[in-house]
């Protein structure tokens, strides 16, 4: 079986990973009164509180800042969850993988689908907020670029999940390392704060791939611009992640189950 056949086999198990993703999501909120609505509520509380404080700290207009922050945080939450949960994808699936021969992609699909459901729920807050702040002027072709941006981010997440999962199963230090790395990346990437104008083109920001992933969503809505450079960076990241999977799949295909 090669990598593409694995993905094809995983797609055929669509009903399984959709069910597992839904159960996984529900299990996180088992017994709570609000259930999965906590996903939206937690985002609203986070964005609301941080906007009040940071709009003053950064001396920004509250309306502009809350939109910048909301889009940044919800996109960052998706990216960071993919990285941290990606580390445990295969170890969590150990029960299944030790039972029968299953495609690696089954569990990658499960995790990415679960995070996409969360991302969709975030839109319950984000879309009304965009219309509230921007009004109907936002109804333009810019939405095409936002959807295209999300598509690129999801595809990158899909392929990155494979190698993050493989690496974390093989080297047990990777998972705690990624946990710390995500916190550091959050602080050095412009999620809470926009890059200062005079440094916007500096290599510090331009070489940070996460800055570009955030720009895929933020630039069309907040600045009304097509983030051409960020799109090219995302295409490069997608190609790179696909190549990593294609090269390493045959090496880890039969070994992964031994590392779980």
């Amino acid at each position, binding site marked *: 079986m090669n990598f593409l056949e694995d993905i094809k086999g995983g797609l055929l198990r669509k009903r399984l990973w959709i069910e597992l993703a839904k159960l996984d999501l529900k299990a996180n909120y088992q017994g709570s009164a609000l259930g999965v609505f906590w996903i939206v509520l937690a985002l609203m509380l986070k964005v609301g509180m941080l906007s009040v404080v940071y709009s003053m700290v950064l001396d920004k207009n509250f309306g502009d800042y809350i939109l910048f922050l909301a889009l940044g945080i919800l996109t960052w939450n998706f990216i960071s969850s993919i990285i941290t949960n990606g580390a445990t994808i295969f170890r969590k699936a150990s029960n299944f993988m030790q*039972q029968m021969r299953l495609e690696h992609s089954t569990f990658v699909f499960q995790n990415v689908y679960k995070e996409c459901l969360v991302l969709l729920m975030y839109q319950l807050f984000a879309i009304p907020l965009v219309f509230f702040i921007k009004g109907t002027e936002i109804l333009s072709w810019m939405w095409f670029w936002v959807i295209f941006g999300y598509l690129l981010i999801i595809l990158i997440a899909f392929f990155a999940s494979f190698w993050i999962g493989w690496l974390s199963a093989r080297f047990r230090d990777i998972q705690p390392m990624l946990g710390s790395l995500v916190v550091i990346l959050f602080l050095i990437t412009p999620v809470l704060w926009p890059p200062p104008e005079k440094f916007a083109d500096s290599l510090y920001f331009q070489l940070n791939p996460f800055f570009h992933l955030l720009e895929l969503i933020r630039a069309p809505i907040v600045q009304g611009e097509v983030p051409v450079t960020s799109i090219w960076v995302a295409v490069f990241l997608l190609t790179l992640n696909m190549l990593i999977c294609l090269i390493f799949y045959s090496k880890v295909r039969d070994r992964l189950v031994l590392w779980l």
Partner: protein
Amino acid sequence: MAQIQLKNVTFSYKYFPSIGGGLFKSSSGLKSKVALRHIDLNIEKGDTVALLGTNGAGKSTLLKLISGVFKPEQGVVKTNGKIYSFFGRNVGVMPQLSGYDNLKVRGLLLNLNDKEIAEKIEEIVEFTGLGEDLERPVSTYSQGMRARLTFGMLMFVNAEILLVDEGLAAGDKFFLAKTHKFVNDLLDQSKILIFASHSNELLRRFCKKALWLNNGEVMAFGSFETVLKQYNQFKK
């Protein structure tokens, strides 16, 4: 026609020996142990085979090699027929989910359609007598209820080759008699059963042949009572 053939199969499993280690030490941290050595085996349709051997003899590894979960380092494993594997009493059971969800996931894992899953679950509810308990999280089940649910999962079987590792010990005497009848009905002449258990009573109920493994090597393969006698003498 169901058939299993192993030719000169050798396999080593890998494991992390402790919670210690580090990124640069991990290569040495991952240990390797030979689990099976030069195994030759031929199992034909209608064979019901008990796996005998002490802990670490290679029984579970052999089942995982036949199921395709593991690939042999050396040699060839050939199987003919659809395989249903069931390894360990709690493997595949997710305690935070309800019994019903666990059964549904099992059906989906076997690529059954919604109608087939619903019919099977109805059958399992009737057979196991779990009734409304299936709505509760499995973490709240007693040992006996868990055993019944586990057996219920086994009832999804739709294959010619049935591989079971410690899964048929299902609760009280009354239920055990029911499971015995169910498995016997299931194993018509076209099916193969390979069953690993430490309970000779259970093995005797379901198996006509036995394979004795010791330190990853085949010590004997033949009729159940003959091989069991050899195994018991060896243990003394």
